[in-house]
Protein backbone atom coordinates (compact mmCIF):
# COMPACT_ATOMS: atom_id res chain seq x y z
CA UNK A 1 0.00 0.00 0.00
CA UNK A 2 1.23 3.49 -0.81
CA UNK A 3 1.23 6.26 1.79
CA UNK A 4 -1.78 8.02 0.32
CA UNK A 5 -3.86 4.87 0.34
CA UNK A 6 -2.77 4.07 3.88
CA UNK A 7 -3.75 7.59 4.88
CA UNK A 8 -7.18 7.14 3.31
CA UNK A 9 -7.72 3.88 5.16
CA UNK A 10 -6.88 5.48 8.50
CA UNK A 11 -8.92 8.58 7.69
CA UNK A 12 -11.93 6.42 6.91
CA UNK A 13 -11.59 4.49 10.15
CA UNK A 14 -11.27 7.75 12.07
CA UNK A 15 -14.30 9.28 10.37
CA UNK A 16 -16.46 6.43 11.57
CA UNK A 17 -15.85 7.32 15.23
CA UNK A 18 -15.05 11.00 14.93
CA UNK A 19 -16.89 12.32 11.89
CA UNK A 20 -16.37 15.96 12.76
CA UNK A 21 -12.58 15.72 12.95
CA UNK A 22 -10.77 17.58 10.21
CA UNK A 23 -7.69 15.43 9.54
CA UNK A 24 -6.06 18.28 7.70
CA UNK A 25 -5.79 20.15 10.97
CA UNK A 26 -4.38 17.30 12.99
CA UNK A 27 -0.70 17.46 13.81
CA UNK A 28 0.50 14.18 12.29
CA UNK A 29 3.45 14.07 14.68
CA UNK A 30 1.35 14.39 17.84
CA UNK A 31 -0.54 11.66 19.65
CA UNK A 32 -3.51 10.81 17.45
CA UNK A 33 -5.81 9.90 20.32
CA UNK A 34 -5.22 13.32 21.85
CA UNK A 35 -5.52 15.24 18.57
CA UNK A 36 -8.78 13.57 17.61
CA UNK A 37 -10.11 13.22 21.15
CA UNK A 38 -10.39 9.44 21.03
CA UNK A 39 -10.92 7.30 24.08
CA UNK A 40 -9.85 3.66 24.32
CA UNK A 41 -13.15 2.45 22.87
CA UNK A 42 -12.76 4.79 19.88
CA UNK A 43 -9.15 3.79 19.37
CA UNK A 44 -10.09 0.11 19.43
CA UNK A 45 -12.69 0.82 16.77
CA UNK A 46 -10.09 2.53 14.60
CA UNK A 47 -7.64 -0.34 15.06
CA UNK A 48 -10.37 -2.81 14.19
CA UNK A 49 -11.32 -0.97 11.01
CA UNK A 50 -7.72 -0.56 9.84
CA UNK A 51 -6.96 -4.19 10.69
CA UNK A 52 -9.87 -5.28 8.52
CA UNK A 53 -8.65 -3.08 5.68
CA UNK A 54 -5.10 -4.39 5.75
CA UNK A 55 -6.14 -7.99 6.25
CA UNK A 56 -4.47 -8.63 9.56
CA UNK A 57 -4.99 -7.71 13.18
CA UNK A 58 -2.86 -4.96 14.69
CA UNK A 59 -1.79 -6.52 18.00
CA UNK A 60 -1.93 -4.54 21.23
CA UNK A 61 1.84 -4.82 21.46
CA UNK A 62 2.05 -2.69 18.29
CA UNK A 63 -0.11 0.14 19.64
CA UNK A 64 2.98 2.14 20.51
CA UNK A 65 3.93 2.03 16.83
CA UNK A 66 0.68 3.63 15.71
CA UNK A 67 0.45 6.46 18.20
CA UNK A 68 0.66 9.33 15.73
CA UNK A 69 -0.94 9.75 12.33
CA UNK A 70 2.49 9.65 10.69
CA UNK A 71 3.59 6.51 12.48
CA UNK A 72 0.25 4.87 11.82
CA UNK A 73 0.66 5.51 8.09
CA UNK A 74 4.21 4.13 8.23
CA UNK A 75 2.93 1.04 10.02
CA UNK A 76 0.19 0.38 7.49
CA UNK A 77 2.58 0.84 4.58
CA UNK A 78 5.03 -1.55 6.23
CA UNK A 79 2.33 -4.08 7.04
CA UNK A 80 1.05 -4.24 3.49
CA UNK A 81 4.35 -4.35 1.68
CA UNK A 82 6.47 -7.36 0.82
Amino acid sequence: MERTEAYEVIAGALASVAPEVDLGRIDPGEELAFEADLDSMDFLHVVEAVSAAIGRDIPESDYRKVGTLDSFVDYVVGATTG
Partner: protein
Amino acid sequence: MPSLGADMDAGTVVEWRIAPGDHVARGDIVAVVSTEKADLDMEAFADGIVEELLVPEGVEVAVGTPLVRLAGSAPSPPSAPSPPSAPAPPAAAAPPRREPAPRVTSPLVRHLAVERHVDLGGVQGTGPGGSITRGDIERVSHASAPPAPPEDRGRIRASPLARSRARRRGLDLRGVPGTGPGGAVVEADLASAAATPATAGPAPGTTSPTGRRADAVRRSVGQLMARSAREVPHYYLASTIDLQPALDWLAGQNQDRPVAERVLPAALLARAVVVACAAHPLVNGHWVDGAFRPSEVVDLGVAVRLRGGGVVSPVVADAGQLSVPELMARLRQVVERARSGRLLASEMAGPTMTITNLGDRGADSVLGVISPPQVALVGFGRIAERPWVVDGEVVARSVVTASLAADHRVSDGQDGSAFLAAVERSLARPDDL
Protein backbone atom coordinates in the same frame (compact mmCIF):
# COMPACT_ATOMS: atom_id res chain seq x y z
CA MET B 1 -45.38 5.82 26.88
CA PRO B 2 -42.66 4.29 29.03
CA SER B 3 -40.64 6.20 31.55
CA LEU B 4 -37.19 6.38 30.08
CA GLY B 5 -35.47 8.32 32.81
CA ALA B 6 -35.98 9.29 36.43
CA ASP B 7 -37.05 12.79 35.46
CA MET B 8 -39.14 12.00 32.41
CA ASP B 9 -42.79 13.09 32.40
CA ALA B 10 -43.71 12.96 28.77
CA GLY B 11 -42.55 11.81 25.37
CA THR B 12 -43.49 12.03 21.73
CA VAL B 13 -43.73 9.33 19.11
CA VAL B 14 -41.89 10.91 16.20
CA GLU B 15 -42.26 7.93 13.92
CA TRP B 16 -44.36 4.80 13.97
CA ARG B 17 -42.63 1.71 12.57
CA ILE B 18 -45.73 -0.47 12.66
CA ALA B 19 -49.23 -0.22 11.26
CA PRO B 20 -52.56 -1.82 12.14
CA GLY B 21 -52.54 -5.41 11.00
CA ASP B 22 -48.82 -5.96 11.52
CA HIS B 23 -47.56 -8.91 13.56
CA VAL B 24 -45.35 -7.72 16.36
CA ALA B 25 -43.03 -9.79 18.50
CA ARG B 26 -41.57 -8.78 21.80
CA GLY B 27 -38.38 -6.85 21.15
CA ASP B 28 -39.34 -5.54 17.71
CA ILE B 29 -38.79 -1.83 17.25
CA VAL B 30 -42.26 -0.30 17.04
CA ALA B 31 -41.59 3.42 17.19
CA VAL B 32 -39.02 6.15 17.53
CA VAL B 33 -39.77 8.09 20.68
CA SER B 34 -38.42 11.53 21.36
CA THR B 35 -37.73 12.59 24.90
CA GLU B 36 -36.12 15.78 26.13
CA LYS B 37 -32.74 14.14 26.01
CA ALA B 38 -32.69 11.84 23.06
CA ASP B 39 -34.56 10.01 20.34
CA LEU B 40 -34.87 6.36 21.31
CA ASP B 41 -35.96 3.22 19.50
CA MET B 42 -38.85 1.71 21.42
CA GLU B 43 -39.34 -2.04 21.46
CA ALA B 44 -42.59 -3.93 21.84
CA PHE B 45 -43.15 -5.42 25.30
CA ALA B 46 -45.41 -8.19 24.07
CA ASP B 47 -46.34 -10.29 21.06
CA GLY B 48 -49.52 -9.62 19.14
CA ILE B 49 -51.21 -8.16 16.12
CA VAL B 50 -51.47 -4.39 15.99
CA GLU B 51 -55.09 -3.31 16.27
CA GLU B 52 -54.75 0.41 16.63
CA LEU B 53 -52.08 3.07 17.08
CA LEU B 54 -53.52 5.17 19.86
CA VAL B 55 -51.27 8.19 19.65
CA PRO B 56 -50.39 10.15 16.50
CA GLU B 57 -46.87 11.09 15.50
CA GLY B 58 -45.66 14.43 16.77
CA VAL B 59 -47.95 14.73 19.78
CA GLU B 60 -46.43 14.85 23.24
CA VAL B 61 -48.12 12.54 25.72
CA ALA B 62 -47.63 11.84 29.39
CA VAL B 63 -45.69 8.83 30.62
CA GLY B 64 -48.17 6.00 31.09
CA THR B 65 -50.39 6.94 28.15
CA PRO B 66 -51.35 3.82 26.18
CA LEU B 67 -49.69 3.87 22.77
CA VAL B 68 -50.71 0.73 20.93
CA ARG B 69 -53.55 -1.75 21.16
CA LEU B 70 -52.48 -5.26 20.37
CA ALA B 71 -54.84 -8.12 19.73
CA GLY B 72 -53.70 -11.26 21.47
CA SER B 73 -52.40 -9.34 24.48
CA ALA B 74 -54.19 -8.15 27.66
CA PRO B 75 -56.95 -5.52 27.21
CA SER B 76 -54.77 -2.68 28.48
CA PRO B 77 -51.88 -2.19 26.07
CA PRO B 78 -48.37 -2.58 27.48
CA SER B 79 -47.57 0.93 28.57
CA ALA B 80 -46.00 0.39 31.99
CA PRO B 81 -42.27 0.92 32.26
CA SER B 82 -40.35 -2.29 31.84
CA PRO B 83 -39.49 -3.58 35.36
CA PRO B 84 -35.76 -3.48 35.98
CA SER B 85 -35.54 -7.21 36.52
CA ALA B 86 -37.23 -8.19 33.25
CA PRO B 87 -34.56 -9.49 30.90
CA ALA B 88 -34.14 -6.93 28.16
CA PRO B 89 -34.52 -8.57 24.75
CA PRO B 90 -31.42 -8.30 22.60
CA ALA B 91 -31.53 -5.46 20.13
CA ALA B 92 -32.94 -7.40 17.19
CA ALA B 93 -34.63 -4.77 15.05
CA ALA B 94 -37.22 -6.52 12.91
CA PRO B 95 -37.23 -5.77 9.20
CA PRO B 96 -39.79 -3.07 8.33
CA ARG B 97 -43.32 -4.43 8.37
CA ARG B 98 -44.37 -2.34 5.45
CA GLU B 99 -42.49 -0.21 2.99
CA PRO B 100 -41.82 2.75 5.24
CA ALA B 101 -42.44 6.28 4.12
CA PRO B 102 -39.09 8.07 3.57
CA ARG B 103 -37.44 7.83 6.95
CA VAL B 104 -37.51 11.08 8.85
CA THR B 105 -36.47 10.47 12.39
CA SER B 106 -36.07 14.05 13.45
CA PRO B 107 -38.79 16.58 14.25
CA LEU B 108 -36.33 19.23 13.11
CA VAL B 109 -36.18 17.83 9.59
CA ARG B 110 -39.94 17.43 9.46
CA HIS B 111 -40.41 21.00 10.58
CA LEU B 112 -38.01 22.23 7.93
CA ALA B 113 -39.86 20.29 5.25
CA VAL B 114 -43.12 21.94 6.26
CA GLU B 115 -41.46 25.36 6.32
CA ARG B 116 -40.02 24.89 2.85
CA HIS B 117 -43.16 23.26 1.45
CA VAL B 118 -41.23 20.11 0.61
CA ASP B 119 -43.10 16.85 0.08
CA LEU B 120 -41.08 14.26 1.96
CA GLY B 121 -42.31 11.56 -0.37
CA GLY B 122 -40.34 13.06 -3.21
CA VAL B 123 -37.06 13.42 -1.35
CA GLN B 124 -34.10 11.13 -1.84
CA GLY B 125 -32.64 10.49 1.60
CA THR B 126 -28.86 10.58 1.91
CA GLY B 127 -28.64 9.97 5.66
CA PRO B 128 -27.97 6.66 7.38
CA GLY B 129 -30.36 3.97 6.17
CA GLY B 130 -31.73 6.25 3.49
CA SER B 131 -33.13 8.64 6.05
CA ILE B 132 -33.87 12.18 5.02
CA THR B 133 -31.49 14.74 6.42
CA ARG B 134 -31.74 18.45 6.77
CA GLY B 135 -29.29 18.76 3.88
CA ASP B 136 -31.67 16.79 1.65
CA ILE B 137 -34.50 19.22 2.38
CA GLU B 138 -32.21 22.17 1.74
CA ARG B 139 -31.09 20.72 -1.55
CA VAL B 140 -34.59 20.01 -2.75
CA SER B 141 -35.91 23.40 -1.78
CA HIS B 142 -33.01 25.12 -3.57
CA ALA B 143 -32.23 26.98 -0.42
CA SER B 144 -29.89 29.89 -0.95
CA ALA B 145 -28.90 29.69 2.69
CA PRO B 146 -25.41 28.33 3.39
CA PRO B 147 -25.29 24.51 3.54
CA ALA B 148 -26.55 23.40 6.91
CA PRO B 149 -24.58 20.84 8.88
CA PRO B 150 -25.89 17.28 8.38
CA GLU B 151 -28.74 16.46 10.75
CA ASP B 152 -26.95 15.07 13.70
CA ARG B 153 -29.32 14.92 16.65
CA GLY B 154 -28.13 18.17 18.07
CA ARG B 155 -24.45 17.83 17.33
CA ILE B 156 -22.79 20.66 15.43
CA ARG B 157 -19.97 19.48 13.20
CA ALA B 158 -16.80 21.03 14.48
CA SER B 159 -13.24 20.00 15.10
CA PRO B 160 -12.38 19.22 18.74
CA LEU B 161 -10.01 22.19 18.72
CA ALA B 162 -12.68 24.58 17.44
CA ARG B 163 -15.09 23.18 19.98
CA SER B 164 -12.86 23.75 22.97
CA ARG B 165 -11.78 27.19 21.73
CA ALA B 166 -15.40 28.19 21.21
CA ARG B 167 -16.30 27.00 24.66
CA ARG B 168 -13.45 28.97 26.22
CA ARG B 169 -14.40 32.12 24.36
CA GLY B 170 -18.08 31.69 25.07
CA LEU B 171 -18.82 31.45 21.34
CA ASP B 172 -21.96 29.79 20.07
CA LEU B 173 -20.90 27.31 17.39
CA ARG B 174 -24.36 27.46 15.88
CA GLY B 175 -23.68 30.96 14.63
CA VAL B 176 -20.32 30.20 13.02
CA PRO B 177 -20.24 29.29 9.33
CA GLY B 178 -17.99 26.28 8.89
CA THR B 179 -15.43 25.90 6.13
CA GLY B 180 -14.19 22.46 7.11
CA PRO B 181 -15.30 19.15 5.56
CA GLY B 182 -19.08 18.92 5.31
CA GLY B 183 -19.45 22.44 6.64
CA ALA B 184 -17.71 21.62 9.90
CA VAL B 185 -16.52 24.51 12.00
CA VAL B 186 -12.76 24.57 12.26
CA GLU B 187 -10.48 26.75 14.29
CA ALA B 188 -9.86 29.29 11.52
CA ASP B 189 -13.60 29.97 11.30
CA LEU B 190 -13.66 31.04 14.93
CA ALA B 191 -11.10 33.74 14.30
CA SER B 192 -13.42 35.44 11.84
CA ALA B 193 -16.55 34.90 13.90
CA ALA B 194 -17.82 37.83 15.95
CA ALA B 195 -17.05 37.30 19.62
CA THR B 196 -20.72 36.79 20.43
CA PRO B 197 -21.13 35.22 23.84
CA ALA B 198 -23.18 32.02 23.75
CA THR B 199 -25.78 33.57 26.01
CA ALA B 200 -26.48 36.39 23.56
CA GLY B 201 -27.45 33.93 20.83
CA PRO B 202 -30.69 33.94 18.87
CA ALA B 203 -33.60 35.59 20.66
CA PRO B 204 -35.71 33.28 22.78
CA GLY B 205 -38.33 31.56 20.69
CA THR B 206 -36.12 31.49 17.63
CA THR B 207 -33.58 28.98 18.93
CA SER B 208 -33.39 26.07 16.53
CA PRO B 209 -34.81 22.78 17.82
CA THR B 210 -31.25 21.44 17.70
CA GLY B 211 -30.07 24.08 20.15
CA ARG B 212 -33.24 23.55 22.16
CA ARG B 213 -32.46 19.89 22.66
CA ALA B 214 -28.88 20.56 23.78
CA ASP B 215 -30.20 23.20 26.18
CA ALA B 216 -32.91 20.85 27.39
CA VAL B 217 -30.37 18.13 28.12
CA ARG B 218 -28.19 20.51 30.06
CA ARG B 219 -31.15 21.87 31.99
CA SER B 220 -32.50 18.44 32.73
CA VAL B 221 -29.14 17.13 33.94
CA GLY B 222 -28.66 20.28 35.96
CA GLN B 223 -32.05 19.85 37.62
CA LEU B 224 -31.35 16.24 38.47
CA MET B 225 -27.97 17.11 39.94
CA ALA B 226 -29.44 19.99 41.95
CA ARG B 227 -32.17 17.71 43.26
CA SER B 228 -29.57 15.12 44.16
CA ALA B 229 -27.46 17.66 46.02
CA ARG B 230 -30.57 18.80 47.91
CA GLU B 231 -32.06 15.44 48.79
CA VAL B 232 -29.28 12.89 48.91
CA PRO B 233 -26.81 13.04 51.79
CA HIS B 234 -23.65 12.03 49.94
CA TYR B 235 -20.52 10.59 51.42
CA TYR B 236 -17.40 9.88 49.42
CA LEU B 237 -14.66 7.27 49.56
CA ALA B 238 -11.74 6.58 47.25
CA SER B 239 -9.23 3.80 46.90
CA THR B 240 -6.20 3.52 44.65
CA ILE B 241 -5.88 0.07 43.20
CA ASP B 242 -2.89 -1.72 41.69
CA LEU B 243 -4.23 -2.70 38.30
CA GLN B 244 -1.03 -4.28 36.98
CA PRO B 245 -2.02 -7.91 37.58
CA ALA B 246 -5.37 -7.31 35.85
CA LEU B 247 -3.76 -5.49 32.91
CA ASP B 248 -1.08 -8.15 32.47
CA TRP B 249 -3.75 -10.84 32.53
CA LEU B 250 -5.82 -8.86 30.00
CA ALA B 251 -2.84 -8.45 27.65
CA GLY B 252 -2.38 -12.21 27.69
CA GLN B 253 -6.05 -12.78 26.95
CA ASN B 254 -6.16 -10.26 24.14
CA GLN B 255 -3.09 -11.69 22.45
CA ASP B 256 -5.01 -14.82 21.56
CA ARG B 257 -8.19 -13.04 20.52
CA PRO B 258 -9.13 -11.35 17.24
CA VAL B 259 -9.45 -7.57 17.43
CA ALA B 260 -13.22 -7.73 17.43
CA GLU B 261 -13.09 -9.68 20.71
CA ARG B 262 -10.45 -7.58 22.39
CA VAL B 263 -11.42 -6.61 25.93
CA LEU B 264 -10.69 -3.17 27.34
CA PRO B 265 -9.77 -2.46 30.99
CA ALA B 266 -13.08 -0.59 31.30
CA ALA B 267 -14.93 -3.89 30.93
CA LEU B 268 -12.85 -5.48 33.69
CA LEU B 269 -13.54 -2.57 36.00
CA ALA B 270 -17.26 -2.80 35.26
CA ARG B 271 -17.22 -6.54 35.92
CA ALA B 272 -15.43 -6.07 39.25
CA VAL B 273 -18.07 -3.54 40.32
CA VAL B 274 -20.93 -5.82 39.32
CA VAL B 275 -19.41 -8.77 41.18
CA ALA B 276 -18.85 -6.65 44.29
CA CYS B 277 -22.52 -5.61 44.29
CA ALA B 278 -23.58 -9.19 44.97
CA ALA B 279 -22.07 -9.20 48.44
CA HIS B 280 -22.73 -5.51 49.11
CA PRO B 281 -26.39 -4.85 48.38
CA LEU B 282 -26.49 -1.44 50.05
CA VAL B 283 -25.05 0.25 46.95
CA ASN B 284 -27.32 -1.39 44.41
CA GLY B 285 -30.97 -0.37 44.40
CA HIS B 286 -33.31 2.59 44.76
CA TRP B 287 -34.43 5.02 47.42
CA VAL B 288 -38.19 5.20 47.00
CA ASP B 289 -40.83 6.67 49.34
CA GLY B 290 -38.46 7.03 52.24
CA ALA B 291 -36.99 3.54 52.11
CA PHE B 292 -34.24 1.61 50.38
CA ARG B 293 -35.34 -1.05 47.90
CA PRO B 294 -32.35 -3.27 47.17
CA SER B 295 -32.27 -4.87 43.76
CA GLU B 296 -31.60 -8.54 43.16
CA VAL B 297 -30.00 -7.84 39.84
CA VAL B 298 -27.47 -5.25 38.79
CA ASP B 299 -28.80 -3.05 36.01
CA LEU B 300 -25.62 -1.15 35.40
CA GLY B 301 -25.81 2.42 34.17
CA VAL B 302 -22.72 3.37 32.21
CA ALA B 303 -21.93 7.05 31.84
CA VAL B 304 -20.98 7.66 28.21
CA ARG B 305 -19.31 10.85 27.15
CA LEU B 306 -20.75 12.21 23.92
CA ARG B 307 -18.58 13.81 21.30
CA GLY B 308 -19.25 17.51 21.36
CA GLY B 309 -20.26 17.48 24.99
CA GLY B 310 -22.82 15.94 27.25
CA VAL B 311 -23.19 12.62 28.97
CA VAL B 312 -25.83 9.95 28.61
CA SER B 313 -26.06 6.86 30.80
CA PRO B 314 -27.49 3.83 29.02
CA VAL B 315 -28.15 0.73 31.06
CA VAL B 316 -26.74 -2.77 30.70
CA ALA B 317 -29.59 -4.77 32.19
CA ASP B 318 -28.80 -7.73 34.47
CA ALA B 319 -25.08 -7.15 34.02
CA GLY B 320 -24.33 -9.84 36.58
CA GLN B 321 -25.25 -12.50 34.04
CA LEU B 322 -22.61 -11.38 31.58
CA SER B 323 -19.11 -12.75 31.37
CA VAL B 324 -16.27 -10.27 30.81
CA PRO B 325 -16.28 -10.72 27.00
CA GLU B 326 -20.08 -10.43 26.93
CA LEU B 327 -19.95 -7.31 29.08
CA MET B 328 -17.34 -5.84 26.75
CA ALA B 329 -19.57 -6.50 23.74
CA ARG B 330 -22.53 -4.86 25.48
CA LEU B 331 -20.44 -1.86 26.47
CA ARG B 332 -19.28 -1.40 22.87
CA GLN B 333 -22.86 -1.63 21.73
CA VAL B 334 -24.31 0.93 24.13
CA VAL B 335 -21.41 3.32 23.66
CA GLU B 336 -21.81 3.20 19.89
CA ARG B 337 -25.57 3.60 20.09
CA ALA B 338 -25.29 6.42 22.60
CA ARG B 339 -22.82 8.28 20.38
CA SER B 340 -24.83 7.82 17.23
CA GLY B 341 -28.06 8.70 18.98
CA ARG B 342 -29.70 5.33 18.37
CA LEU B 343 -30.20 3.99 21.87
CA LEU B 344 -33.05 1.59 22.47
CA ALA B 345 -35.72 2.65 24.93
CA SER B 346 -34.96 -0.47 26.97
CA GLU B 347 -31.38 0.74 27.30
CA MET B 348 -32.58 3.84 29.12
CA ALA B 349 -34.68 2.03 31.71
CA GLY B 350 -33.71 2.73 35.32
CA PRO B 351 -30.27 1.60 36.44
CA THR B 352 -29.77 0.20 39.94
CA MET B 353 -26.31 1.72 40.10
CA THR B 354 -24.05 3.65 37.76
CA ILE B 355 -20.40 3.55 36.87
CA THR B 356 -18.50 6.51 35.46
CA ASN B 357 -15.11 6.23 33.89
CA LEU B 358 -13.16 9.35 33.06
CA GLY B 359 -11.11 7.67 30.38
CA ASP B 360 -7.49 7.91 29.46
CA ARG B 361 -7.01 11.64 29.78
CA GLY B 362 -9.34 12.32 32.69
CA ALA B 363 -8.46 13.34 36.20
CA ASP B 364 -7.05 10.84 38.68
CA SER B 365 -10.37 10.34 40.43
CA VAL B 366 -13.97 11.35 40.12
CA LEU B 367 -16.21 12.12 43.07
CA GLY B 368 -19.55 12.32 41.38
CA VAL B 369 -23.15 13.13 42.03
CA ILE B 370 -25.59 10.27 42.48
CA SER B 371 -28.62 10.25 40.17
CA PRO B 372 -31.71 9.63 42.30
CA PRO B 373 -33.38 7.25 42.90
CA GLN B 374 -30.07 5.36 42.76
CA VAL B 375 -28.04 5.24 45.95
CA ALA B 376 -24.48 5.05 44.66
CA LEU B 377 -22.13 6.04 41.87
CA VAL B 378 -18.81 4.31 41.30
CA GLY B 379 -16.11 6.28 39.54
CA PHE B 380 -12.78 5.41 37.98
CA GLY B 381 -10.12 7.93 37.13
CA ARG B 382 -7.52 7.38 34.47
CA ILE B 383 -5.20 4.41 34.61
CA ALA B 384 -1.70 5.77 35.07
CA GLU B 385 1.76 4.54 35.96
CA ARG B 386 2.74 5.49 39.47
CA PRO B 387 5.41 4.49 41.96
CA TRP B 388 4.10 1.60 44.03
CA VAL B 389 5.56 -0.54 46.78
CA VAL B 390 5.80 -4.26 46.09
CA ASP B 391 7.71 -6.50 48.52
CA GLY B 392 9.37 -3.53 50.13
CA GLU B 393 10.62 -2.11 46.82
CA VAL B 394 9.35 0.86 44.85
CA VAL B 395 8.34 -0.16 41.34
CA ALA B 396 6.31 1.41 38.53
CA ARG B 397 2.75 0.03 38.38
CA SER B 398 -0.38 0.94 36.51
CA VAL B 399 -2.87 2.04 39.11
CA VAL B 400 -6.41 3.41 39.07
CA THR B 401 -8.38 5.29 41.70
CA ALA B 402 -11.82 3.83 42.32
CA SER B 403 -14.27 6.09 44.10
CA LEU B 404 -17.67 5.65 45.61
CA ALA B 405 -20.29 8.32 46.10
CA ALA B 406 -23.04 6.83 48.23
CA ASP B 407 -26.28 7.76 49.96
CA HIS B 408 -25.76 8.04 53.69
CA ARG B 409 -29.40 7.16 54.37
CA VAL B 410 -28.61 3.69 53.07
CA SER B 411 -24.97 2.94 53.81
CA ASP B 412 -22.09 4.37 55.77
CA GLY B 413 -18.33 4.61 55.43
CA GLN B 414 -17.76 1.10 56.67
CA ASP B 415 -20.18 -0.38 54.14
CA GLY B 416 -18.69 1.72 51.38
CA SER B 417 -15.13 0.75 52.30
CA ALA B 418 -16.04 -2.91 52.29
CA PHE B 419 -17.55 -2.49 48.83
CA LEU B 420 -14.43 -0.82 47.42
CA ALA B 421 -12.27 -3.47 49.06
CA ALA B 422 -14.34 -6.10 47.26
CA VAL B 423 -13.78 -4.33 43.94
CA GLU B 424 -10.05 -4.25 44.66
CA ARG B 425 -10.00 -7.95 45.56
CA SER B 426 -11.79 -8.88 42.34
CA LEU B 427 -9.26 -6.97 40.28
CA ALA B 428 -6.37 -8.67 42.10
CA ARG B 429 -7.70 -12.03 40.88
CA PRO B 430 -8.72 -11.30 37.27
CA ASP B 431 -8.90 -14.99 36.44
CA ASP B 432 -11.92 -15.31 38.68
CA LEU B 433 -13.68 -12.41 37.01
